[in-house]
């Protein structure tokens, strides 16, 4: 009985570690293309001009570490902003469909981790 009691703190610590796995902090964006007019893709806001597309790699981060899992970006309104996966791992393409505002959902393993406001400006 005594050895079991001695191991209890270790077991509690181990359970805590499992429950407190890496938590999503932000997404890092790295452009793969140079759009003909500037666009802004950040954790705070997407700003894209109507008709303009940009390709980028998006990495979900916990602190300074890339997170594992199924990572997706989704548009809340595809009549304003288009969002699609690209061919490379964690690559995406975003394009302005029509002027307006919407949000981009950031999903990791099905869970919505963030909703980033998005604006499409007119040409």
């Amino acid at each position, binding site marked *: 009985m005594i050895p079991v009691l001695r191991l209890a703190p270790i077991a509690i610590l181990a359970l805590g570690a499992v429950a407190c796995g890496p938590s999503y902090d932000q997404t890092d964006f790295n452009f*793969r*293309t*140079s*759009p*003909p*007019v*500037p666009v802004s893709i950040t954790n705070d806001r997407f700003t894209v001009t*109507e*008709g*303009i*597309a940009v*390709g980028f790699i998006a990495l979900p981060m916990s602190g300074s570490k890339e997170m594992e899992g199924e990572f997706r970006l989704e548009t809340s309104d595809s009549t304003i902003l*288009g969002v*699609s*996966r*690209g*061919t490379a791992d964690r690559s995406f*393409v975003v*394009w*302005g*469909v*029509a002027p307006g505002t919407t949000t981009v959902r950031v999903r990791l393993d099905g869970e919505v981790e963030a909703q980033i406001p998005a604006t499409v400006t007119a*040409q």
Partner: protein
Amino acid sequence: MNRYMGRVGATAVLAVWGTLGCTSANTTSGELNQGGFSYATVGDGRSDVASRTLTNDYGGNNPVPVLAVGGQFNVRFVPKSGGGSEWGSDQIIPAAPGLLAREGANLVAKRPGQSAILANDGSVVRDFVHVQVKLVDRVQLSRVDAGVETVLGDSETITLLAGQSSVDLAALPMSSVGEILAGSMPYAWSIEGDPDIVTLTSKGGYQNGLSAGTKAGKVTVVVRVAGQSSSFHVEVSQ
């Protein structure tokens, strides 16, 4: 802005399929470098001057074709992987329907601006390319003699001999900065005056032929395209 345009021009050039009927294909890389895009004429009896503006020799510095508002065109995409199969037109998606709209298998330039064309199979965007659209600002008329073009000045007069002379003509839609604009568009050629003096012998679209009739006199030839027109005079003498 120019820095961005330069990059796009180097990496995202559309290629022309040359002549009406799409007999030759030259592709160049999309901006994601996942395949090649080709620009194709519509081939529906309308005209497209793209084959005049771009050659079939595509290096890295060729400009993206500039399209005319109202111009109709077709874009093909062949991915690098996938056995070289061309994608269907339903997988070629204009980014912004307000700028470029789909009409059947073709795209139509709706208003000035820049717009991406996406190769999208429904789940993945494989690649894309940007094109520029501009308004037709004026129509440049030229006479063509044995393949040599001479630009006709505004309201210039061409002199022909009755019953003998003929001349080929070309009407090019131009932007405000002097670019020849691509895209298939209807061209309306007409003669104002006595039809016995001069007749038009249609060669299709932006090209036309002019034949002197048997009667002497003076007429005006007018061509209209995309809301713009240009004219010149023809004087036929005996």
